[in-house]
Every structure is written in structure tokens, then in C-alpha cells.
């Protein structure tokens, strides 16, 4: 029964995984470009972001088509509406990876960005994105909750990066502009963590029918 609908839902999940992995790839590449201070690597983020944008439109149109054709209820409706919300956050994640790459391309070549802190921060943000998409596909509320919880870790890294940049400026006032660039990048990573949290919250909604913003958020 409804094998066509199930097939369409399967395709939707596959597309979401694909879009999620593109997001991971974009952040990972931007982070690598940063730590190697390599503007050529940074330039490779742009086409990935374009692909993410294209997928957002494609998934959005497929979701609307499913709502129209299948008139889903209960779990089906929650999964499709959650997908519609999640892709907006994924698209923003792609934009922020590209923003990081753009800043990297302007950082003077003599700067060494292999600060362990920001690399770890990038790693933590990537993991949040990966886990949030995995949680959706595996319908795993524990994993989704762990993404929400690990936002504190990323926020903590941000505070640490900020403190280290304050010291940098105090020691080398000439590095002010560079420090601000790194601060921007850290802020983007922190925002990426927030988007992963949004995704995880919609994952929980798709499983439990309850969104944290309101207990009455049932459809």
C-alpha cells in the first residue's frame, strides 16, 4: 500500500542526507582553507554552496508536491513539514561556510591560522550538523537531543576564541584587523551550531509531534 508515496518519502530522505553532507563538506572545506590559509581551497566552497541552494529549491518543491498529492497526516505530515523547515537552516549553513571561505581569501598570506581552538570549534560544529541530519534519517531522538546539548560546547569555544583574540590584540595592536576576521569566522561557526540546533529541534518534532517553542505545536 502507498508504495509510491513511501518511495517518494525515501527519495526525500536521500535528498536531505545529500544536502546535509554537502553542508558538512562546505564547512569542512572552509575550515581546512582557514587552517592552511589557502585561498584556492577557499574558492572551492562557492560551487558547493550553489549546489546547496539548488537542492533547497528542489527539496522544497518536492515537499510541496507531496503535500498536494498525498495530503499526508500524522507522522508523514510531520516529517515533510520538518523537512521544509530543516532545509532553510541547511541553506543558511551553506551560506555561512561560504562567508568563512570569503574571509579566508582576504587574510594576508603570512598569517598562520592553525590555531587549535578554531579548528576544534569547526570540528564540533561539523559534528553537530552531521548528527542532526543523521538523527532525522534514523529517527533518533537521543541523537537529536545530544546535538541540542552540544551547542554549549561550541558556545564555549566561541568564548575561548574571543578571549584569545583579545590577548592577541593587546600584544600586537597591528593584528587588530586580522583578529576581527577570525572573530567573524568564529561567530559564523557559532551560528552554524545554532542552525544545527534548529534542525535537531525539528527532528524531535517529527518524531514526537512536540516542538520546544510550544507544546501545542502539533499539526
Amino acid at each position: 500500500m502507498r508504495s509510491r508515496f513511501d518511495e517518494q518519502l525515501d527519495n526525500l530522505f536521500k535528498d536531505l542526507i545529500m544536502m546535509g553532507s554537502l553542508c558538512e563538506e562546505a564547512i569542512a572545506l572552509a575550515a581546512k582553507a582557514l587552517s592552511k590559509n589557502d585561498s584556492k581551497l577557499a574558492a572551492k566552497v562557492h560551487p558547493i554552496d550553489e549546489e546547496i541552494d539548488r537542492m533547497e529549491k528542489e527539496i522544497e518543491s518536492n515537499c510541496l508536491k507531496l503535500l498536494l498529492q498525498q495530503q499526508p497526516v500524522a507522522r508523514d505530515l510531520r516529517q515533510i513539514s520538518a523537512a521544509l523547515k530543516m532545509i532553510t537552516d541547511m541553506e543558511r549553513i551553506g551560506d555561512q561556510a561560504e562567508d568563512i571561505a570569503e574571509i579566508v581569501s582576504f587574510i594576508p598570506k603570512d598569517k598562520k591560522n592553525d590555531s587549535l581552538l578554531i579548528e576544534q570549534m569547526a570540528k564540533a560544529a561539523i559534528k553537530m550538523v552531521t548528527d542532526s541530519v543523521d538523527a532525522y534519517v534514523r529517527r533518533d531522538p537521543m541523537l537529536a537531543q545530544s546535538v541540542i546539548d552540544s551547542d554549549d560546547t561550541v558556545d564555549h569555544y566561541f568564548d575561548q576564541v574571543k578571549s584569545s583574540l583579545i590577548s592577541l590584540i593587546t600584544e600586537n595592536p597591528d593584528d587588530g584587523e586580522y583578529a576581527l576576521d577570525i572573530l567573524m569566522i568564529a561567530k559564523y561557526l557559532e551560528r552554524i551550531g545554532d542552525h544545527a540546533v534548529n534542525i535537531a529541534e525539528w527532528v524531535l518534532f517529527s518524531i514526537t509531534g512536540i516542538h520546544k517553542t510550544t507544546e501545542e505545536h502539533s499539526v
Partner: protein
Amino acid sequence: MSDIITARDLSLWYGNSQALKNVNIRIPEKNITALIGPSGCGKSTFLKTLNRMNDLVNSVKITGTVQYRGEDIFSPSMDVNELRKNIGMVFQKPNPFPMSIYDNIAYGPRTHGITAKSDLDEIVETSLRGAAIWEEVKDRLKKNAMGLSGGQQQRLCIARALAVKPDVLLMDEPTSALDPISTSKVEELILQLREEYTIIIVTHNMQQAVRISDRTAFFLLGELIEYSSTNQLFSQPFDKRTEDYITGRFG
């Protein structure tokens, strides 16, 4: 909000085959309650039990109780004609009597002893207005009702049910024989009637249940599987069988 109909441990057999199994349900007043479930699940049987239409079947056996406003409907002291006046029914296929529109509506009140023309005129107009069909038929009340469209015939049947001033309206798939426009007119009408009447509707159209009902009951193989607010049942059904049915993955 008080309950108007309460069934307790209601079981029903047609001969040896059991059509209802220990149904327990409380139906609130001035609400629309939808009964859903696959064919043969017992929802129409349950509906017909509420105004004792099943009395007409020879081999029927019933255990358990059904109370209407606190009174046992199977009690020997229950006046079945009075019960059916209070709990009216609208069927799947419009079934106007082969007589004028006016006489269709006046038929019930006349059998209940109302004969004064002025009284009947008023009942006919109020009922037709109540069923949102007055404007369409007021100039041809003396014409035969069989000449109306399917959707108009169904609204006429609803008007006919309203003419005896019922309390509860039972509807057995009232729009399944209608086109989409007539369907939406009848749905609008049902929503308006909710102000004054308690409505229990059997429907195979799940979207219709979502659109118009306050509460939904899911029946399967004679059992009441799940009964809750329509919003709850269609967003987070409690029972896996309900979820499988409403999402179209039944069986």
C-alpha cells in the same frame, strides 16, 4: 460540555457474526464526531444502533447499554418513535420522497400531528433555511423534489431531518454521492448545524473528518480502537493501527 450519548460495553451480533465488540464511547453535545474505519469495521452499525435502526434487522442481538441523555435507549419504556425524532438520520444517497419539496419537509411534522398551514409553512421555511437551501428552492416549493440536483436533494434531506426538531443528527457518508461543490456546501452546512445540534458522521473521506469534526473515533473489526480529538488523532495517533489506517498504510 456534557455527554449526550454514552455507550458502555456495547456488543452487537448479526446472527453469529459479531459486528461490534465492547464499544465504550461518550459523545459530547453540540460537537461533530466522525466515525472512520475500513468497510465492515462496524462504524455504520454503531451509527444505526444509536436510534435503533438495527431493530429492523431480524437476527440482531445486542448486549451492553446505550444512554441518550441519561436514558437507556433499549429500555422497554423507551418510545422508539420519540427516540428517532430526537435522533434523526441522513443517509449516504439522497432519498427525497417522490412528492413536492414542501411536502417532503412537512411529512415528519404532519406525522407528529402538526396540521395548521401557518405552522407547517414556518417549519418548512425554517428547516430549508437551516439546511442552507431556502434561497435555491423558495420559488418552487410545490415542484417535485426529484427534480433537484443531487447536492440539493441531500440538503433537502437534511432539512427534512431538521423539520422534526431533532437533538442529534446521524449522517452516514452524507457526501459520498456528491460532487466536490455540493460536498463543500454540505460540509459548510454541517459546521453551521454544530451550533445547535450534535452531529455524528460516518465518513470514508479522511480529509473530510479532519476538516469538519471535533472528535474522531477509529473502528476496526467491530472494535473502537481509538477515540480522541480529531487534531490529536490525525497528528499523533496513539495506536499503530490508527496510524497505519489514516496514513493509508493499512494491512
